[in-house]
């Protein structure tokens, strides 16, 4: 078990290094010139060249990468002489568009995305899994058909469409939630909830439909296993057969899917944040792409990908705890 964890952590670190290289390359392959973006209309070639030098963009690629990585761990200072600015640890670059260090931007936006992701995640997991279990237990009956039909419809609607419907009816037509926008929980729990409930539903709807189908199929498969028959042959009550023997095995694959999906949303729910005007990582990513704000693009991609890699490891470790057969692997 210990060796397994060590092996997985080493693999994760290697993956993160590769990932940072690829995103860094992306930064340099894109047709936008970061130096050109540092000054406005009054740019002259001389100013651009000076800025390029100040930002270290005239160094060879490997030197730039080295500085980038160094910046993450020890910070870095741009420029020279009087015109310098410090980029503190962990420095992922400096956004001239926003006039701020990218790390600070991400730190400011992340809490909103995290709240959005966490609420949506709980909502979709609880509703999706319980609906899926009900459908599996009522297999072939009208409950099952209704649930699976609804899930198919839910799964087919894009989240922005559901988001817009919710906005139009719940907020604009029926005035069920306020127009105040995002408010911190500590300022007003009620406004906080009103601002987030619609995006939670929008995110959860598609996912819940997916999880309902996944759970139903998993449960049906598990309930047909030989060990379920053994559990019944022991004389266990049907409740115990389903709860202790069926769910334990049937829900294990859901852990994998849930971990990765949560990580994905944590990296920024681009569409939902845009539709509901929430100032999170997704919106930051979109804005930076529109503005050709390269350091920010690189950083958001890096952060989102890191979430996926880390959650992959967590899921695998969880799996080893749930399924004793994995420990050998």
């Amino acid at each position, binding site marked *: 078990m210990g060796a397994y964890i060590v092996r997985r952590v080493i693999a994760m670190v290697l993956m993160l290094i590769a990932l940072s290289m690829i995103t860094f390359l992306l930064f340099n392959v894109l047709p936008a010139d970061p130096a050109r973006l540092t000054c406005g209309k009054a740019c002259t070639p001389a100013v651009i060249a000076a800025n390029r030098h100040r930002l270290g963009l005239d160094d060879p690629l490997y030197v730039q990468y080295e500085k980038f990585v160094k910046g993450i761990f020890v910070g870095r200072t741009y420029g020279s002489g009087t015109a310098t600015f410090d980029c503190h640890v962990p420095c992922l670059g400096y956004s001239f568009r926003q006039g701020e260090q990218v790390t600070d931007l991400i730190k400011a936006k992340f809490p909103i995305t995290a709240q959005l992701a966490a609420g949506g995640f709980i909502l979709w997991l609880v509703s999706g899994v319980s609906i899926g279990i009900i459908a599996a237990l009522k297999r072939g009956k009208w409950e099952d058909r209704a649930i699976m039909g609804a899930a198919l419809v839910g799964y087919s609607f894009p989240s922005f469409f559901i988001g817009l419907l919710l906005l139009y009816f719940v907020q604009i037509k029926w005035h069920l939630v306020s127009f105040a926008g995002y408010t911190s929980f500590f300022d007003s729990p009620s406004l906080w909830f009103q601002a987030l409930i619609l995006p939670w539903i929008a995110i959860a709807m598609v996912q819940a439909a997916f999880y309902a189908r996944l759970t139903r199929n998993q449960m049906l498969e598990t309930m047909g*296993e*030989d*060990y379920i*028959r*053994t*559990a*019944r*042959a*022991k*004389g*266990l*009550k*049907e409740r*115990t057969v389903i709860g*202790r*023997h069926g769910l*334990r*095995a049937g829900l*294990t694959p859901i852990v994998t899917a849930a971990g990765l999906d949560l990580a994905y949303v944590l990296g920024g729910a681009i569409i939902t944040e845009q539709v509901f005007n929430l100032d999170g990582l997704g919106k930051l990513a979109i804005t930076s792409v529109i503005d050709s704000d390269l350091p920010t693009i690189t950083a958001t991609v890096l952060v989102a990908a890191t979430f996926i890699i880390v959650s992959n490891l967590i899921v695998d470790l969880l799996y080893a705890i*749930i*399924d*004793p*057969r994995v420990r050998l692997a």
Partner: protein
Amino acid sequence: MSQPFLDVKELRVQFPTEDGIVNAVDGVSFSVQKNETLAIVGESGSGKSVTAQAVMGLINRKSATITGEVFLDGEELVSASKEQVRSLRGKRMAMIFQDPLSSLHPFYSIGRQLVEAIKVHQDISKAKALGISRDMLDRVGIPNPERRLKDYPHNLSGGMRQRVMIAMALLNDPELLIADEPTTALDVTVQAQIIELLRGLQKEFGTAIVLITHDLGVVADMADQVVVMYGGRVVENAGIEDIYYRPEMPYTWGLLGSVPRMDVGRHERLEPIPGQPPSLIRLPKGCVFRPRCPYHELVPGNRCDDERPDLVPTSASHAVRCHLEPAQRREIAAERLGSPAMEET
């Protein structure tokens, strides 16, 4: 003879499917005494496993129609409530299955699965249940039972797993043990050990055993009475001696002819039974075995095509479902099976 411990009468199991009703078990009757082993023999799809699961109440009553009677020590189970049958399962009647790896839960330790089986039926402490489990593992010949309790099914070999399954079935001292192909998934040396184990345990506990198998070697080792099933029906029901030395049904002859024997020369080829088992949805009007039977022409007037034979007793412990005349059957059997049949008759 006392009242049999398990008495199955005219058991019928039908599954409705989109293609029609599947008559998986079609009027099966047999009985087993305590201390006795009854073997149910037949090809895949002959209804033997479904029969066993119906007796155990393991067939979902919503997905199948079950009729007939199953008496366990005088108590009727087909009409009993689900709860009543559940309380008997694992307590008075227990079952072991073909594939011990897939039949044990992969996520729970052996100890936990055994303790659970005890605690459903007995109100005792976990420590005490663990003790019983350990003793039972020891009894079924598992070395180091204390350590095995903490192991998971995947840590054990196939034979050990089947021993665990047997231990699990015996935890509550059941009076009836149904073994559904208990040795099929195991290699030959382990098969012999498992059969030996079951025989020893039967002697010790006086259990009634229903052994479901297609392996006639296993039958010869263990059974007292043999029920041969074909197409969801019993086609021959006889004592072990009669089945091997005086079989009277063409299908039984076919089964015996397709098993390698030590007492005949190596040059003799095994004879497979031609054709396929029947579809259980559209059974032929006459004898179910007619399409594969090489002797139907000996019966005059197309009776094999038009008339379904009844299971007719030929002696106190022997019944056969066949239109052939008894004298004809004995003659063909003697000819097909060679010397052993001659000596005995």
